């Protein structure tokens, strides 16, 4: 009898415990914590992101979103290490250069259905040119939240002090060409300051030279990505021009020389317009923002992109996709575009952009931002980009010497990356 009683009470206790545990589990399932990896640690950016997360929480009280800032230089490496370690974030920013790797691998959750189903989203408003790289088999795998044109920032004080024509004067005279831009940079360099800095290139990240070589119609590989075109004439001409600008005219700071435009030490820099936030508030200089100069292939524009993707492996992929839909809806896209220009056609007008980019003039917005986004090509990318990038970089080191044989080096590069491109 006592034995039976014990058995009964134990069963009863287990039942109570079990129901409590199940209830607990149900509650834990309700609370959803989403994590997004980003490469910005900018306070103003994070403030806006947190506001957006708080806005989402109003309709989804059980969902919290945290942002994890990873260093820019090693961002993709850190992200893939998290994935390899079984600790993938729910959402991640993705560089345009590694877009193909992520989109084609199946690592990302398809977003099209969720975005289309979101109220007032209007996915058609986003240009197809902007979504091309992030789409596979008609499905959008990451949303291109930032479409930022490359442009030339100019320090007019330094240019005038060197007795050279300012880019604005050259544009007015229809003389804004690469030859003249380099002449101006060389004139400033002679006065002891830096000439033209291709920001982030640093003789390592050669993809940033796209902002120059696109002016020659050059490209590292064919449209379909299968054939190396680095040894073709446009690329050889463009790189010979750059080599000459570095080593003969001294218009571009050489390898191992560090010059910061935003500290007032260089005549010009090529970078994305979002870097306007780096312009000095104390000791400001007279600056201008102009489109990229004309090359031998005519006028051109280049845009850098960044996408937000939802990780397929995440437990809450569907909720994460809903958050991406909320974050990039027309209203929030307008807010984001003060830092990250939107690819939404409805937001590409001077009035809206002027409100969100108070540092830029109406003319700068029209000539650089709107026309840049409308006509710009995206930076090159490829499946297995990191490996191709490294192979090209280690060979290009031979170009960054005064006595370099540019065409022979480019031939060698094509010989090496050819098989990788075909993969």
């Amino acid at each position: 009898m006592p034995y039976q009683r014990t058995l009964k009470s134990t069963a009863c206790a287990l039942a109570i415990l079990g129901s409590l545990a199940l209830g607990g589990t149900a509650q834990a399932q309700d609370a959803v914590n989403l994590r997004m990896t980003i490469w910005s640690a900018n306070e103003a950016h994070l403030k806006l992101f947190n506001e957006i997360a708080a806005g989402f929480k109003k309709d989804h009280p059980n969902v919290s979103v945290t942002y994890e800032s990873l260093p820019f230089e090693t961002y993709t490496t850190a992200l893939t290490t998290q994935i390899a370690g079984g600790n993938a974030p729910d959402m991640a920013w993705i560089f345009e250069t590694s877009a193909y790797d992520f989109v084609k691998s199946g690592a990302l959750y398809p977003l099209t259905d969720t975005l289309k189903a979101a109220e007032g989203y209007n996915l058609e408003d986003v240009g197809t040119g902007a979504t091309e790289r992030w789409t596979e088999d008609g499905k959008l795998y990451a949303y291109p939240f930032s479409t930022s044109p490359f442009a030339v920032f100019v320090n007019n004080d330094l240019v005038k002090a060197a007795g050279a024509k300012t880019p604005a004067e050259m544009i007015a005279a229809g003389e804004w060409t690469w030859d003249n831009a380099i002449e101006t940079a060389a004139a400033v360099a002679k006065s002891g300051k830096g000439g033209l800095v291709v920001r982030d290139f640093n003789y390592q990240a050669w993809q940033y030279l796209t902002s120059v070589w696109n002016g020659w119609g050059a490209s590292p590989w064919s449209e379909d990505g299968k054939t190396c075109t680095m040894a073709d004439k446009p690329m050889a001409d463009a790189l010979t021009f750059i080599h000459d600008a570095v080593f003969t005219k001294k218009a571009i700071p050489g390898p191992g020389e560090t010059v910061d435009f935003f500290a007032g030490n260089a005549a010009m820099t090529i970078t994305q317009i979002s870097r306007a936030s780096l312009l000095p508030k104390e000791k400001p200089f007279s600056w201008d923002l102009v489109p990229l100069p004309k090359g031998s292939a005519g006028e051109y524009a280049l845009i850098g992109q960044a996408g937000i993707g939802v990780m397929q492996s995440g437990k809450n992929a569907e909720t994460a996709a809903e958050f991406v839909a909320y974050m990039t809806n027309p209203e929030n896209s307008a807010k984001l575009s003060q830092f990250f220009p939107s690819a939404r056609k409805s937001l590409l007008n001077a009035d809206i952009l002027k409100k969100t980019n108070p540092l830029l003039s109406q003319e700068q917005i029209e000539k650089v931002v709107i026309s840049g986004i409308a006509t710009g090509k995206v930076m090159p990318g490829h499946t297995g980009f990191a490996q191709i990038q490294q192979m090209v970089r280690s060979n290009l080191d031979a170009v960054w010497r005064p006595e370099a044989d540019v065409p022979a080096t480019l031939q060698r590069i094509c010989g090496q990356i050819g098989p990788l491109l075909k993969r």
Partner: protein
Amino acid sequence: MAVAQEDARPEGRSSSPFWTIARRDSLTGFLFIAPQLIGIVVFVLIPLGLVFWYSLHEWNVLANTFTYTGAQNYRMLMEDESLLEVLGATAIFSAGLVIFNLSLALLLAVLLNQKLAGIAIFRTLFFSPVVVSLVAWTIVWSFLLQKNGGINGMLLTFGIEGPNWLREETTAMISVIVVQVFKNVGLNMILFLAALQGVPKELYEAARIDGAPAFKQFRRITLPLISPTILLTSIITIVGSLQVFAQIAVLTQGGPGLSTTVLVYYLYQQAFQFHFFGYGSTLSILLFAIVAILTFAQWQMRKRIVFYES
């Protein structure tokens, strides 16, 4: 005695107790070393086994696929055209580092093994880089080694135009070796200093009476007596040189070309940048084999070159 113990057993128990003194002692011993043992199992042995297991697979992190490929990664290792260049760079780096580090450490130790006023200040000075953060140390050197950096600025005051240290193949390799040597030479210096102070003074006295000049005293007395320390420091330095990573990542990223891409940096690129985790694991098995062979060879050589007083 054994009989007495037998008699002392309680009634009804025929077998001997499980917890004999010997067993209890060994359990206590194991419990004492357990924290270290668990650490080695969790952080060394299991990862080592896993790395070997990964090396037999193709692991695509993004696609979340893990496919058994047998010896394919090892065949890839044999056919990897860059690997020879990488191993060459690794050999140059290790050889340069070991020779420069040990000779400088020994020289400093001999110089600082004097009873002079203020000598402790110099000892502290040479040892201080050892406690500085490696990355901070390397970043400061990366500024100094720029073309328009501190070192070339200093050379210019003497009318010398310095090279572009990190952008020329030879100077880049010399730079990473020197940065690493200056960082760690203090540690070997202290070990040599301790060894030098352990050499009995009577031996030098006897040698002086016999008329042996200073160099001969160093060669015939000092070197043989500190040879165990030379072996120890050379093993530590060689193993350390094969693991160098942060200096390369900060200073040269393996360039120019592949001239400073040492094995660990190449492994990092393959696994973490190109996402070839399987091949990266194969490279780490190669690194493990190289370290094991070198350490074994040095250990064997000790019989011929190391002099033990006892």
